[in-house]
């Protein structure tokens, strides 16, 4: 096992500092939203979490394609790592969205198409873990896992499109929103800065966690190989 790379230690520290700064910005720098009040502050991390979720699912799909082309197990480890992290972050996005919805729409959950599709995406990747669990042979697991990661990532935009055709009440902060959206607001400069900063910070968090998870994945692979060697 290689010792922890120095660059990773540096990344750890930078990420922690950035994260504390982001929390500070959300609570003290960003102005209070006039209509919704404090609960609007969840927005910064809510979107950042969803962003990390999508980023990871994309990374997994790309490494899935690369695995199928190259057949190098490294890409399987990366794909699994990305989906594991993103699964958690996307879940946090759903929970934080729920908290925001309670304050803004007055309910924890509505069957609004966008919420529904977020839940579908989460279930899609839950199925990914179940699929991997059912496969014992490492090569087969990697191959089929990669294919499922690709398939699900392609279905995500289609799911979202089927929602755009639906009328949605979810506000669209970036770009033009639907006329019926509730809880929409215009961002002031400070809000926008906080928002962009949160996105960048969460990308750092993602990169840092991904690196750790890949190292863990390598260890798991080594352990599995040892186990197979002992058994045979």
């Amino acid at each position, binding site marked *: 096992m290689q010792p922890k790379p120095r660059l990773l230690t540096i990344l750890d520290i930078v990420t922690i500092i950035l994260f504390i700064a982001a929390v500070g910005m959300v609570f003290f720098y960003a102005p209070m939203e006039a209509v919704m009040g404090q609960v609007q502050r969840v927005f910064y991390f809510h979107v950042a979490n969803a962003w990390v979720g999508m980023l990871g699912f994309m990374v997994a799909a790309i490494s899935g394609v690369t695995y*199928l082309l190259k057949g190098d197990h490294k890409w399987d480890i990366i794909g699994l790592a990305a989906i594991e992290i993103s699964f958690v972050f996307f879940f946090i996005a759903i929970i934080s969205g729920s908290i925001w919805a309670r304050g803004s729409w007055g309910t924890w959950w509505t069957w609004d198409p966008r919420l529904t*599709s977020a839940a*579908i*995406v989460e*279930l*899609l990747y839950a*199925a990914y873990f*179940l*699929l991997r*669990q*059912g*496969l*014992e042979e490492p090569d*087969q697991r990697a*191959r*089929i896992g*990669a*294919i*499922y990661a*690709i*398939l*699900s990532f*392609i*279905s995500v935009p*289609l*799911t979202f*499109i*089927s929602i755009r*055709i*639906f009328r949605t009440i979810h506000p669209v902060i970036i770009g033009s929103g639907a006329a019926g959206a509730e809880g929409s607001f215009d961002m002031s400069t400070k809000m926008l800065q906080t928002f962009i900063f949160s996105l960048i910070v969460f990308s750092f968090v993602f990169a840092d966690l991904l690196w750790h998870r890949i190292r863990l994945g390598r260890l798991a692979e080594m352990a599995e190989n040892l186990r197979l060697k002992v058994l045979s």
Partner: protein
Amino acid sequence: MEIIPQAEQQPIRRSPFQGAGRFFHSLTAIIWKDLAAELRSRELLSSMLVFALLVILIFNFALELDAQARATVTAGVLWVTFAFAGTIGLNRSMAMEKDRGCLDGLLLAPVDRSAIYFGKAIGNLIFMLVVETIILPVYSVLYGVNLFKPGLILVILLGSIGYVAVGTLLSSMAVQTRTRDVLLPILLFPLVIPVMIAAVKASTGYLQGMELIDIRPWLNLLMVYDVIFIAIAFMVFDYIVEE
């Protein structure tokens, strides 16, 4: 005396460009194999059909399908029924190949791998369409709704193609796992949600006599989904069955 194995001496005729005729021939052979097996055993179609009727029966009690409710939920009931019956068919059709070692035989045969996928998919599509053509008149008679509208038939065709294209691919993945019977619906349903939404919406549109311009986006979505997933299945199927 030295015996040289003849098989190795002969040049194996496996040109990458086998021609469309050859492909079509192996495709029809695989479809025919599935149909012939089904004609003899009838286990797949009969279980799909009985299951579909049971689902409709349960819906009848669960939703209290009176005239008012029917106007809005008919499309939903139909598509849930098709989806559930479809998983039974997909599961069975792939498990049959795996259990009796037929899949290995198919893979050993000198045919294009994609011919196997398309053969299985078209076979599954035929079974699903057969079930649907029986369910539709039964539903029409039971509830006194006229379901025979050309638009609805088109939607059912497009929806079934998308469902089967993804379903065949996923069932060939699920069949290799330990928990295969349980796993297929878990893998399949979140992936075919766009098909389900679009198909239900378009069917409702046709049943309620909505303008074509309102139904159009859903039809487009169905077609886009079909094309994308057939293309992807074509590309990745090789990797699934690889040993």
